[in-house]
């Protein structure tokens, strides 16, 4: 220490406080930070490219007619994809109506009533398995269950059920987690003023968890809206306006799948436009999920 004396204007023991970027650990720091930034950029490249490509290709075809007209017959110009937009909304709505009540109730059972027994453990395990099942399997399952048996045939309902199967694990898991975050003391407080178990769950625990549950539901919807495989042989496709929920119905994702591979230019342009609208729909639901999450209590 004393050797510094005289060469430095300040007290020698403070010399070490100065920044010194040539020390090995500072060099290491700079390199690692650079590496992380590089990885982030590399990760973002495909995302940006996909969005940019879809936007460039699709934006040109965005016309008012797109939202009001049916697709043109092969070989003809113009037309829109209004039926597919409405169809996607209908099928996803059916899927949501089925999966949300079942999913939330199942999660309430797991979190509030199962007492962490064997049943709950198996249900949680199979929920995780179900969330990893390829989406086409869900389509095949519903095809065998509703289409082949003639119960509904190719229809919006069959498509909705197939998507519901895919949404269920997400909804169960996020709701289960949302309920587990609610502090135990709130349940005690409710029970302490003379509430029964179900009053506590319905009036205290579920309302407190609603923002997180809604986030899970919107994420599930966003995923389901983009699915193609489960819809190909359940909702099938239709070139006409939706005609009741027991008829085949057009959806955006199947429209993209069908039109992207035909040799006609107008159809291909509609497929691009459909892709863009689908991406925007998913983006919108994700943004809604974000906004809703901000109101979380816990």
């Amino acid at each position, binding site marked *: 220490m004393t050797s510094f004396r005289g060469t430095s204007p300040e007290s020698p023991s403070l010399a070490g406080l100065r920044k010194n970027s040539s020390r090995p650990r500072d060099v290491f720091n700079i390199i690692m930070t650079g590496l992380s930034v590089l990885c982030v950029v590399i990760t973002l490249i495909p995302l940006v490219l996909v969005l940019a490509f879809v936007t460039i290709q699709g934006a040109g075809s965005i016309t008012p007619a797109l939202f009001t007209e049916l697709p043109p017959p092969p070989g003809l110009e113009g037309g829109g994809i209004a039926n597919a937009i409405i169809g996607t909304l209908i099928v996803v709505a059916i899927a949501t109506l089925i999966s949300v009540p079942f999913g939330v109730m199942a999660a309430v059972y797991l979190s509030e009533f199962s*007492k962490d027994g064997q049943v709950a453990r198996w249900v949680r395990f199979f929920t995780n398995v179900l969330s990893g099942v390829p989406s086409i399997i869900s389509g095949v399952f519903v095809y065998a269950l509703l289409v082949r048996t003639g119960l509904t045939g190719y229809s919006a309902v069959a498509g909705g059920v197939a998507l519901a199967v895919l949404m269920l694990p997400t909804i169960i898991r996020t709701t289960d987690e949302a309920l587990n975050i609610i*502090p135990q*003391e*709130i*349940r*005690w*407080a*409710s*029970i*302490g*003023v*003379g*509430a*029964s178990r179900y*009053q506590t769950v319905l*009036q*205290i625990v579920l*309302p*407190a968890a609603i923002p997180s549950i809604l986030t899970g539901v919107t994420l599930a919807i966003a995923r389901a809206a983009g699915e193609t495989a489960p819809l190909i042989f359940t909702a099938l496709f239709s070139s006409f306006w939706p005609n009741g929920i027991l008829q085949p119905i057009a959806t955006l994702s199947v429209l993209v799948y069908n039109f992207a591979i035909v040799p006609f230019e107008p159809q291909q342009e509609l497929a691009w436009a459909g892709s863009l609208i689908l991406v925007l729909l998913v983006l919108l639901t994700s943004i809604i999920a974000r906004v809703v999450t901000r109101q979380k*209590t*816990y």
Partner: protein
Amino acid sequence: MVEQVAAQTNQTKTSTVFKIEDCDIYYGSYKAVRDVSMEIPPNQITSFIGPSGCGKSTILRCLNRLNDLIEIFHLTGKILYHGQNLYDSDIDPVEVRRRIGMVFQRPNPFPKTIYDNIAYGPRINGFKGDTDEMDALVERSLKRAVLWDEVKDKLQESGFSLSGGQQQRLCIARAVAVDPEVVLMDEPCSALDPISTLKIEELMMELREKYTIVIVTHNMQQATRVADKTAFFNAVPTESGGKVGYLAEFNDTQEIFGNPKETATRDYVTGRFG
């Protein structure tokens, strides 16, 4: 309905609110508390003191059957409430908890408005009055918890917007809103600053007029300040290596702190252990 129940309670009122007879408490096969017998008098503050793990909170939670929520909990012996064993098979624990309220260690308001925090209890217990009567009940409960003046202009704000001490008084107001006979308090001031603690203590002294209060506290000064009677619980090691709690001494607070009969009590209240 609330008035009706209160009338019934008055008819059967005895000079002892709780009579605990030979209680052993188990978690699974583990015996947590052994052989507790004591009587808790009405309209007084009874405090439970003792080192950690002596089972004082466990005993407290038996008094309104909150321990039922713990799967492996099991109790032998009797806990008589005005002569009625609370653990008889035909007793409805939900109604027990309505009559015997609870305030917890950490303030735990519901994620609702201040107004709804108070109104929730009466509503789920079948409150039949109109909006004006509910307004009056909310006001009365908040006044009883000496919180009214601080919150009367923001009843529609969230309960979380209050300070810790105010939240705890909100929880007390919530407990008294369902018109209980007993209020159990599990270390109600341990998460609060000294000034809030003082307010809660003053509040307890006032509530004593109308309610029987049982309080668990780690703070011996608090016990001497507020409690009429004090129970000292102690824990001793068992052969299997665990600890079992027992009631070492129960007497007037002055006696416990001024003239303890047991050596363990004297050592504890003079700060030699715990």
